[in-house]
């Protein structure tokens, strides 16, 4: 509530600042605008920035740290017997306080000290929000007054404003780096917690995957087993099937589009193929589960084969179809980049079109095509929904595409969907898998992008 109010106040003051700055600048030279260093609008923006920016920065810093600070304050006031526990109970305690403070029933009678802490937490948060509102609003008013005070014919408003804008642009372009850092850090931290419980060697080379953890220590199968080899094998199997579909079809389609199809046909074919790329993966998953899997199964039965109702083959074929446009449009680009003179030379020697393509165009385009295939593989490895919906969840160590297998992404999804405790190896193992997935796809992408880049320079 208070935060919305503050946002409104800030927006209002910014607009007022702009108008005030602009009119004061014009007034300071008696309406002869040419005598100003900068045009009046820049003076307006100058005052608006003074009014809005400091308060906004405060607002961001405050909201990012407020919850944590207040929680620490409340926790430090709790009696010893509650805070003395290990990491697990501390997490539980925090969750209890937060839930109670938000009025969410936890389902059991809270400890009176915890209930008191929750009340204090709520009142502190309330107090903090109101003081933020007061401080933020006064900061904005002060900024507005200061900015307005500085307006005059000699004020160099434009360079000042442009400096701020430039800093903002730089910050925006740093978001990409921040995202990468965020991904790496979050994966690494949680994965390290996982590897503190499960040895990385067991994880990478173990052949049994069953992440179920027992509720009590004395239960049967109380320790989960985290050998990820079956997941890697399953991912590999489905990726191979997908590539067997996507690479020949995608490549031939690209060759046909760039070498044989006429201009008119091409303008229709390319977007039509790209529709396949625009279909959400969940739709492919539905198609794989309801149409492709029964089809594969009935064909297999007609041939006398034993096909699982959720086979790797069905999921792989549909994934291959999804990747066709990816392969075809990337290869299409590299094939088009091969200079016409090479083709003309080949025709001049009497080669037919297909001979030219096979012996001149494709070898020349090969690095680009390899890069396209690598990017396609990385996409197949990272695809989640199709396998989640169509190839089951059983971790099978098999090379038989007619059986159900599971993949790394599917396991990440199933491990983290629903209620989960944050400290169990079961939950944390998803981050271990995520780290492996990230590193593998990162390597594939890096190599592919580098190949594309060096290849491009050849004909430029």
């Amino acid at each position, binding site marked *: 509530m208070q935060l919305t109010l503050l946002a409104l106040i800030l927006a209002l003051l910014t607009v007022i600042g702009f108008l005030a700055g602009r009119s004061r600048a014009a007034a300071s030279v008696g309406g002869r605008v040419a005598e100003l260093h900068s045009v009046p609008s820049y003076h307006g923006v100058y005052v608006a920035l003074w009014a809005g920016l400091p308060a906004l920065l405060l607002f961001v810093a405050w909201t990012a740290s407020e*919850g944590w600070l207040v929680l620490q304050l409340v926790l430090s006031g709790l009696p010893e017997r509650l805070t003395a526990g290990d990491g697990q109970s501390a997490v539980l305690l925090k969750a209890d306080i*937060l839930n109670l403070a938000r009025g969410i029933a936890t389902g059991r009678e809270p400890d009176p000290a915890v209930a008191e802490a929750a009340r204090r937490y709520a009142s502190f948060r309330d107090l903090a929000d109101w003081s933020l509102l007061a401080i933020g609003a006064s900061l904005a008013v002060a900024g507005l007054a200061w900015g307005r005070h500085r307006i005059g014919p000699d004020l160099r408003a434009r360079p000042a404003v*442009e400096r701020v*804008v*430039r800093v903002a*642009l730089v910050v*925006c*372009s740093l*978001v*990409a*780096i921040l*995202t*990468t850092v*965020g*991904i790496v850090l*979050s*994966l690494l*931290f949680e994965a390290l917690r996982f590897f503190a419980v499960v040895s990385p060697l067991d994880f990478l080379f173990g052949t049994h995957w069953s992440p179920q953890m027992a509720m009590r220590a004395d239960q049967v199968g109380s320790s989960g087993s985290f050998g990820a080899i079956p997941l890697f094998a399953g991912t590999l199997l489905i990726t191979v099937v997908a590539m067997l579909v996507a690479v020949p*079809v*995608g*490549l*031939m389609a690209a060759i*046909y589009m760039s070498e044989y199809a006429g201009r008119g046909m091409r303008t229709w074919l390319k977007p039509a*193929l790209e*529709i*396949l790329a*625009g*279909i*959400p*993966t*969940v*739709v492919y998953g*539905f*198609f794989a*589960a*309801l*149409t492709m899997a029964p089809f594969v199964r009935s064909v297999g039965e007609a041939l006398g084969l034993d096909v699982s109702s959720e086979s790797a083959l069905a999921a792989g074929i549909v994934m291959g*179809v999804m990747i066709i*446009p990816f392969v*075809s449009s990337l290869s299409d680009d590299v094939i088009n980049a091969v200079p016409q003179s090479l083709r003309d030379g080949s025709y001049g020697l009497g080669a037919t*079109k*297909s*001979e030219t393509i096979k012996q001149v165009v494709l070898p020349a385009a090969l690095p680009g095509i390899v890069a396209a295939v690598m990017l396609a593989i*990385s996409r197949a*490895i*990272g695809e*989640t*929904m199709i396998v989640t919906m169509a190839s089951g969840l059983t971790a099978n160590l098999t090379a038989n595409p007619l059986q159900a297998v599971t993949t790394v*992404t599917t396991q*990440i*999804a199933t491990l*983290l*969907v629903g209620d989960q405790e944050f400290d169990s190896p079961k939950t944390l193992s*998803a*981050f271990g898998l*995520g780290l492996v*997935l990230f590193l593998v*796809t990162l390597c594939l*992408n*890096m190599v592919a992008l580098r190949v594309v880049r060096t290849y491009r320079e050849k004909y430029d």
Partner: protein
Amino acid sequence: MTDLLEQDISAAPPSPAPAATSKSRHRSEAFARRLRARHAAERRFRLAGAAAVALAALVLVLLLGSIVARGGSAFWETRIRLEVTLDPAEVADRNYTVLLRRALHAQFPQVTDRAGRRVLNELLSSGAPYELEAMVAGDASIIGTTRTVWVRADDEIDQLVKGRYRRDLPESERGLSDAKIAAADTLMAGGALAQGFNTTLFTAGDSREPEQAGIGGAIVGSLLTLLVTMALSVPVGVSAAVYLEEFAPKNRWTDLIEVNINNLAAVPSIIFGLLGLAVFLGFFGMPRSAPLVGGLVMALMTLPVIIIASRVALKSVPPSVREAALGIGASPLQTVLHHVLPLAMPGILTGTIIGMARALGETAPLLMIGMVAFIVDVPHGLTDSATVLPVQIYMWADSPERAFTERTSAAILILLGVLILLNGAAVVLRKLFERRW
């Protein structure tokens, strides 16, 4: 030089007429055979290319066809006509179920036993009493009168009317009892069963009962999520592109940013879900299942797409425009804001639309941040629990009821329709503003 050439030509001995000698290798039997083989190979290769394109097209048709065949009928729902006497006493007690059942039983005077009546009761949707209640709430004057009302039928009857149960199968394999089929047939023969446009599908939230489930909640959730995505990724993405393309010096830092952006564009989407889970939910303690967090994750995911597209658009604006602006005294920033950016806008817009279309269809990262919760209400704010269209599709796809298959397909059709509209808009924009400098 020309002299030399002419001399050479004139000096050359007259070539023998090729047709005359049978020894020419171009006329040999082996050559003809080789040529035929090469031409056949040429035709085969071309055919293989055409077949690849045809195969892709075929799959597309098959995919769309199978979904239309499954989901087209979900846009209609079956209703039952009842002559309901709105007994004031029962209305006061809000016993609308009793009223409906009484009216239904009146249509089957021959059924008197408990088992038979239970079968009849199951013809009605469990949401039907609420429809009647809403009707009474809308017009209190109808209390005490007898009215003809059309109420929603149970999903099994709906599927029966749509011909999705095979009547020739034995009862145990069909999944629908003979008694229900007989009751439905009686109603149908009396004209008391009819199909109408299914508004529930568009307005309702999720439900365990297929006939009461709709995608209204998911659509609002998708809209809110997309709103957050757009509000964050478009300004940040365009600003980043402007900086990198117009102002950034060429050094190791900008190289690093560039490599980063290219890599982010190819990171598996589920990794972004893990990021959202660890950072936004775990570290900042934001609410689970909220469009706010979903939008944040999607914004990070679409950011590289928008940056790359915007950079291409900015690059295509010729340098002469910038030089002219700078020449008449505009500052670099004014040049970009007043001249370059407006000219690059169509390209940026196209990239944005494609990025949004991608975010609209994405499922996996949203599973990570808890948007799979079963949510009946339509969300009202950015921090309310919500679900989005693709996730709703994923959840319905898991439901065992036949009617949910139909509704899943219908939801897919709606999602695909929106996506095709978006992509179509991008294509039209590109064509409309395509400019050669």
